[in-house]
């Protein structure tokens, strides 16, 4: 159990996230095929591979997060490339030191979410990855606001739970963005692949905090 967010934590969390996404590879592709073009597993695996490779290069936490953003955008394309890239760019500008306490970690994630907002107008209920991202970061904010002494584990456990429940709720939503939007009502019933994989990533970060 660690109580600080560091570059080492980032690397071990990304390793866990990559392993988890690889394990759910076919499931993610199948979820995406229901409303999109069936390649989300492929895309998110490539994203995390690029993220991990960049994270393992030397540099401060802020530089590392910026390299992760560029690494993701260089290695991947499609609609998630610049969204994920902007998230890590936002994390980078929010990383005020190489060892962040829980409150500063939450601030960093708020900065990541804000940067994503400049790339997408998607809100909760639009059936996108933001259905997991927004509640996850909000849960982090709420956790630290309710208890200034909340641990890093509390913060990431809350985020992982909120991301998971946010992803599950996408089953009931009609897609408003991306290719799935064109299906209208027919997009209801299937869980959004991007929200699903993001929930796996938050779970991996929570596990990495617990195991560090």
């Amino acid at each position: 159990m660690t109580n600080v967010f560091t570059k080492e934590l980032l690397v071990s969390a990304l390793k866990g996230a990559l392993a988890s996404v690889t394990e759910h590879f076919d499931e993610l592709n199948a979820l995406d095929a229901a409303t999109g073009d069936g390649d989300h597993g492929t895309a998110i695996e490539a994203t995390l591979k690029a993220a991990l490779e960049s994270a393992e290069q030397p540099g401060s936490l802020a530089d590392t997060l910026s390299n992760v953003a560029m690494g993701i955008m260089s290695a991947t394309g499609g609609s998630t490339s610049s969204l994920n890239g902007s998230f890590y760019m936002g994390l980078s500008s929010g990383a005020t030191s190489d060892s962040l306490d829980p409150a500063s970690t939450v601030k960093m994630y708020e900065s990541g979410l804000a940067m994503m907002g400049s790339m997408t107008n998607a809100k909760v209920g639009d059936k996108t990855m933001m259905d997991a991202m927004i509640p996850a970061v909000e849960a982090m904010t709420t956790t630290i606001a309710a208890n200034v002494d909340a641990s890093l584990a509390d913060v990431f456990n809350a985020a992982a739970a909120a991301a998971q429940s946010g992803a599950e709720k996408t089953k009931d939503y009609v897609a408003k963005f991306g290719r799935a939007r064109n299906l209208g009502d027919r997009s209801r019933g299937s869980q959004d692949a991007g929200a699903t994989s993001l929930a796996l990533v938050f779970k991996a970060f929570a596990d990495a905090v617990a195991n560090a």
Partner: protein
Amino acid sequence: MVMKKFMNDPQRVTNELLEGYALCYPDRVKLVSEKIVVRATPKSKDKVAIVTLGGAGHEPALSGFVGEGMLDASVVGDIFAAPGAPKIVEALRLFKDNAGIILVVLNHEGDQRNASMALMMAEKEGIKVSKIVTAEDIAPGADAPRSERRGLGGCIPLIKVIGAAAEKGMSVDEILAVGERFNERMATLAVTLKVATHPQAGQEIGALADDQMEIGMGQHGEGGGNGPELMQSADWVAETMIKKLLYAIKAKAGEKLCLIINGSGATTLMEMFIVFRKAYAVAKEAGLEIVASKCDELLTVQEAAGFQMFVGIFDDETLALYNAPSDAPYWVNR
């Protein structure tokens, strides 16, 4: 059904198809930095460069239209996926000393977002880029806002028009003005009989029963809102589609029309001609003068069966630009 395609490593399809393409037309195009297709002989720097971006798997679009009188570069993503922003910036840098750069972006989530990020990054480097967005799919309704319409094959005739304008030495503002004039008066509608298989995931994209078709399906098999309906005759489909299209562009008797039937991959030229025949008749009856036409595969979706019907209204200037010479591997005008 098991996917049957001539491929090697699924993760290398984009690289290998681009390598093959560049080897096939070495007098006109070359491949730089793995995913950027440029002209074999660049145009002079005192002219505006026209650049576009988009996923692979739609051949010959969009790289097939790199060449004199059309594109200067095409930045290619993976199958059906826009290229990442850094790759787009790399392509824009090649033209930083030109009289200007215009980036043609099809209205799809990924294309738009990566283009926006690339424009932000280019601006930081002091590279000024203008953007022209195509969003001419009328499946969401003739009066749907542009933000809700997809960019389909209409980008290609548009590229023909603005590419010729750039070749003539027109300024960025002049090219944008002429481009937007054509953009405003063009529309596309797609119909699908059989969906495509994603060459990397191996899964079918979307679903259609044997006796069904779907008017309005996008170029990746995504639905068009109305849903599948029972298969109909060529005449019925052609008449239904051309009427919607002419209504959408507010075509008036006496105007000059461009009519293109673009095959999706598995639809034969035989079928395209049969469809064209009826669409032509309906347009002529509506008093339009069909001054430019094509039945061809310009933008495909793997082995999807179906076609996109494109219409555009010309004025004298856009018609002259459309008819100007070009020498791209998949669009040669003499």
